[in-house]
């Protein structure tokens, strides 16, 4: 049981956590993972997700790999110390902390989970004598700043898009101040696999917009579509790029490193490019009116489904419409050393988009209903 290195992985039931779990199982044959899961999360469902991701990644013996993964119940907040004997028995040497609250507007939950849980885990890690604490943060933890975002701890910004970024920044500081060797990873918006477009995350980021269009704008054909589509480049990274960069950073970076896991600006499409890509594939309106600023949209005058979509996606659209500029010296060094990091280009994003379109009954129905109209329009 004790052979190999023990890693405590939080958030394994989430999208990034499950990607990290499969990455470690595939890329670190001597690693064993202990994953605490909250009540209500079904370990069997989580195993199914991981198994499918392992198979899709080309694993020949996924069951043997999954034997290196164990689940344990996550104690209530304030009682995490109860895990200490289990950590000792499992031989935990490292912590990868990926659990987070992404509910932008639940201030109490953001504070409790993103900051409070991190503090408690750091205390647990300290008691357990853990060698290194890896914290999965976000590229946007800087908040709104008017300078390039470096790979250092952030100061206080002029403002935050939401309390999510604020609490992630506070958690980074707690990690850095803990006295435990750390690695802070800051991925931007993670989308599906660059090769086949598979994606098993929630409807966040770009998928919130795509799913919103699918649900709201694919019941009827809209002759004119009003889109908030700033010409800013959108920072997306593919899940396989995230996995490769995670593994390389985890294996190679020195202690107390911070890594911005972001796209190369030159390759990144604009928000407008993404709207055009989708609208040409699915909605095909006669006219599209693009807006650079949310405030310019005549929201009371546009059709109700478009109004509802605008509201649902408003916060994420405002965030991605901000001119974020990142340093990525650390990632560039890893790439120079041989790490494969497929950039999210319009072509690879189209693969992810098509994957979503292909599995959507609503879009299939919409396209069939309007086949003649679209054929006539050429």
């Amino acid at each position, binding site marked *: 049981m004790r052979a190999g290195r023990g890693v405590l992985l939080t958030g394994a039931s989430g*999208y990034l956590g499950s990607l990290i779990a499969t990455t470690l199982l595939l890329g670190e044959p001597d690693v064993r993972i202990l994953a605490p899961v909250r009540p209500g999360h079904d370990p069997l*469902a989580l195993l*199914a*997700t991981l198994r*499918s*991701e392992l198979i*899709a990644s080309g694993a020949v013996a996924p069951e043997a790999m999954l034997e290196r993964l164990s689940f344990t119940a996550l104690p209530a907040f304030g009682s995490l110390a109860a895990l200490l004997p289990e950590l000792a028995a499992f031989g935990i040497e490292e912590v990868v902390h990926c659990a987070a609250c*992404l*509910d*932008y*507007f*639940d201030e109490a939950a953001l504070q409790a989970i993103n900051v409070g849980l991190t503090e408690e885990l750091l205390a647990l890690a300290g008691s357990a004598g853990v060698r290194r604490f890896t914290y999965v943060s976000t590229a946007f933890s800087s908040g709104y700043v008017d300078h390039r975002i470096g790979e250092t701890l952030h100061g206080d910004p002029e403002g935050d898009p939401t309390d999510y970024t604020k609490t992630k920044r506070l958690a980074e500081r707690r990690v850095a101040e803990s006295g435990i060797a750390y690695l802070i990873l800051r991925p931007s918006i993670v989308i*599906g*696999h660059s090769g*086949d*477009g*598979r*994606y*098993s*995350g*929630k*409807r*966040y980021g770009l*998928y*919130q917009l795509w*799913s919103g269009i699918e*649900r*709201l704008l694919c*019941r009827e054909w809209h002759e004119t579509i009003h889109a908030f589509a700033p010409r800013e480049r959108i920072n997306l990274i593919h899940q396989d790029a995230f996995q490769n960069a995670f593994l390389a950073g985890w294996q190679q970076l020195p202690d107390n490193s911070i890594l911005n896991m972001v796209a190369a600006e030159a390759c990144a499409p604009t928000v407008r490019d993404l709207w055009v890509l989708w609208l040409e594939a699915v909605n095909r309106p006669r006219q599209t009116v693009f807006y650079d600023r*949310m405030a310019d949209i005549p*929201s*009371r005058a546009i059709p*109700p*489904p478009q*109004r*509802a979509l*605008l*509201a*649902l*996606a*408003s*916060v*994420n659209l405002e965030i991605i419409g901000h001119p974020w500029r990142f340093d990525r010296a650390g990632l560039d060094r890893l790439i120079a050393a041989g790490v494969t990091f497929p950039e999210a280009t319009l072509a690879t994003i189209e693969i*992810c988009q098509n*994957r*979503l379109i292909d*599995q959507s009954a609503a879009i299939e129905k919409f396209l069939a209903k309007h086949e003649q109209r679209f054929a006539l329009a050429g």
Partner: protein
Amino acid sequence: MQNHLDSAIELPKGPLQRSDGYMKLLSFVVSNARKGEIMAIENYSEMVHLMPDTDAKIETVHQAKEECKHILLLEKLARRIGFDIDDTMVEPQWESIRQSFHEAVRRKDLPACLIIQDLMVESLAIGLYKVFASAANEDQETVGVAAALLKDELEHLDIGVRRIQAEMEKDADAVNDALLWAHARVMPALFEMVNQSCDFLCEEKQLNCTMVEKPSAEIDLELLKITALEHYVGMLDKANFDPKITNQLIASMASYEAPGRVSAGLEFLRKH
């Protein structure tokens, strides 16, 4: 009153064969709609004393009376078609929504009362009745009842919007505060109720609603949610709330309005 109601809506007889699954689905939907109408009576009745003048008090009592009519119509539909009104199918979230309304009354917060009952709950009711009243629905008896209820609920929504606009002219800040307070308490419960319906029917009633043979493909929970959401957003705009505020509120629904993973390319993970 019963005789008056009988003559108010003519229910056409139809030869439609209803599947067992569809009858179970109707039982679930109508049991919950009836519970919502009972809550509406309680809410309107409790709100009367907050109304600013006699005309408004009378109008509110009239609204409560119309909700009584809706209950009787739903019960009549159940008897006529032959499904049960089943209290074990009623979702628990109705109680928390009722409690939030009661709390608004206790605070003498008329804008919050109007927002909860006339914007939020009515938007869900309108979403539900629109789905069942759609032209694609071949169950004409259900269509007739749903259309009649929809007409009344749209009138209630208009009355609510007019009243909120009046309150907004008196004190816009207080109405905006009431919206923030009410949205955080009621909208998660309303959408949780819809989202959990599918699981409840599968797990407790062994009814996979995606597999049920229905008289309209448009009878589905997703369309209900979307229709209710569109109405809610539209009515917030019509009531003159600032889009900067309402956009944030609607965006906050992302965490509970459409939960679950996408699983594109990993289709076998999907529940249905």
